[in-house]
């Protein structure tokens, strides 16, 4: 059969770059569009200060959403992140207020380590309830969302927990308000976290397994991957990311309350999806995710800077903008 050669040639067709890359680029296109809209709405918008402000305050959601990218890629969902922020932050501040360590620098370091440990532990708890308990992640993390939030309310007795020591506060403050070579520190953290996450997701065995598990659990299992372990670790990574967000959050206001982080889970998931990761799992786009987080923050910013929108309608217009941004993305991808 001599036709071989030729059928072959067709087969070698490269994975179309248009197909793949445009989909990754789409969120950035939506971002660019928003920047243009913003510039038209208010000349101050394009100023460095404003954009830096927006980028800086998107840090919490962006970092949490990076973790969510892992969880979602592996086919799960974590609704507890918002209350986890409140819980971890409360414990961290309570620890600092306890004064068990006299030296402030040491105390700060210990508190940060504690926050990270608690974050990972909370994530692990989510993961284990989901995988070992075999409960839908939606319900499992809805449950822990209630638990973390409830414990926070109880710790704070419904009020706020404020960092007492002014010394610690002033020492810690630069973690949010400081900058490195002019770049606000939280932005640096976003970039570092995302770079590491991208490396893990795209360049390590574990990252591969995450995507495989999200794409098809049975296939992953048949390939000898420990599916439950991969999923649990993804939840732990989410917990770690929450802890990192807390490390930036605490120095900002120096206090937390039972209402800290309410609805952040929705925002994080939205950032992930706007960034191009499908909720059904099987593909993660880390850079898209932080682009998504930035888009969300930017939409709110533009609303506030605009002078012609009734404050009552802001929610409606934000909703409309998100839909339009997604339509822009889709049409871009489809045209390709």
């Amino acid at each position: 059969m001599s036709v071989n050669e030729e059928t072959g040639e067709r087969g070698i067709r490269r994975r179309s770059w248009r197909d793949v890359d445009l989909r990754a680029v789409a969120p950035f296109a939506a971002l660019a569009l928003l920047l243009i809209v913003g510039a038209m709405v208010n000349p101050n918008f394009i100023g460095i200060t404003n954009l830096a402000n927006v980028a800086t305050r998107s840090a919490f959601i962006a970092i949490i959403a990076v973790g969510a990218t892992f969880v979602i890629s592996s086919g799960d969902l974590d609704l507890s992140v918002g209350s986890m922020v409140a819980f971890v932050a409360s414990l961290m501040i309570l620890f600092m207020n306890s004064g068990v360590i006299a030296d402030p620098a040491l105390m700060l370091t210990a508190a940060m380590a504690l926050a990270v440990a608690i974050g990972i532990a909370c994530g692990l708890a989510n993961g284990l309830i989901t995988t070992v308990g075999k409960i839908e992640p939606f319900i499992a993390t809805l449950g822990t969302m209630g638990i973390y939030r409830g414990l926070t309310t109880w710790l704070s007795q419904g009020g706020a927990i404020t960092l007492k020591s002014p010394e610690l506060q002033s020492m810690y403050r630069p973690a949010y308000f400081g900058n490195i070579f002019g770049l606000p520190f939280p932005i640096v953290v976003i970039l570092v976290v995302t770079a590491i996450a991208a490396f893990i997701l795209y360049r390590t065995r574990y990252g591969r397994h995450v995507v495989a598990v999200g794409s098809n659990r049975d296939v992953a299992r048949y390939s000898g991957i420990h599916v439950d372990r991969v999923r649990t670790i993804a939840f732990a990574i989410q917990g770690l990311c929450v802890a990192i967000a807390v490390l930036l959050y605490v120095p900002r206001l120096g206090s937390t309350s039972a209402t800290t982080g309410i609805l952040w889970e929705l925002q994080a998931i939205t950032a992930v999806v706007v960034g191009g990761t499908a909720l059904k799992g099987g593909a993660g786009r880390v850079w898209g995710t932080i682009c998504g987080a930035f888009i969300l923050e930017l939409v709110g910013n533009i609303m506030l800077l605009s002078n012609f929108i009734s404050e009552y309608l802001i929610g409606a217009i934000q909703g409309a903008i998100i839909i339009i941004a997604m339509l822009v993305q889709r049409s871009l991808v489809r045209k390709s």
Partner: protein
Amino acid sequence: QDAKTIGVSIPAADHGWTAGVVYHAERVAEQIRKEHPDAKVIVKTSPDPASQANAVQDLAVQGLDALVILPTDPDQLVNAIKEVKAAGTFVTIVDRAPSVNDATVRDLYVAGNNPALGQTAGEYIKANTPDAEVVVIRGMPIPIDQQRQDGFDKGIAGSNVKVLDRQFGNWNRDDAFKVMQDYLTKYPKIDVVWCQDDDMAVGVLQAIDQAKRTDIQYVVAGAGSKDMIKKVMDGDKMIPVDVLYPPAMVGTAMELTAAAVFNQVPVHGTYTLDATLITKENAKNYYFPDSPF
């Protein structure tokens, strides 16, 4: 004779002020229990009107002699309250009054004064900085917030005070921080910030501090949290005054109700609390360092 049951239904602690409400409700409940060992005082919190209506029903199931309620949204709870009242229970409404607020709905009304909270703030600004350009951070889109806005407008009426912008900060410090950051971007000159709530003031102050802006002369918040009152006491330039809107009013209402239930003291009618302006001079009267709020 002391074996009476008082139900207390209040909003869940979803920001500092409501947290204060919960604290004071608990405190007074304990006090009443001490005074009347056989009394049952049940305090229940609810996050929204629908669940508060449920909570009221659940309290009624346990057999109430009196109900003290601080409604999350009064108009939406009128029906539920009427139901209880119809069963012959003594009803006290605190702070937020429904549009029809008469003896058919309740026996006692302990009023926080929302319009006055706005008005006091407005009048202070009018008196001190009559030509100020003010940005306003609102709470959430619910009636009491609207009443405060209306009161504020009344307070500044007839002056040159100009409101540059009003946006919602959801009584949340993080949201207030964002809104303030954006105000600072949007307006090169701001004289005064009215953010009507001490929780939000925390975020506002941080945003101003970060921007290192010196044009803002002061911030007027409200409620009377210990942190803000401390600042007033200490003579903080940014927080020269605070408008009192004490979460402790729920305790007052409970005490009055207990008096009615246990001692048949006639306490029907309306008790209105002032929206007192806290200044450096009188601040120490309102400072409770043990309160969570």
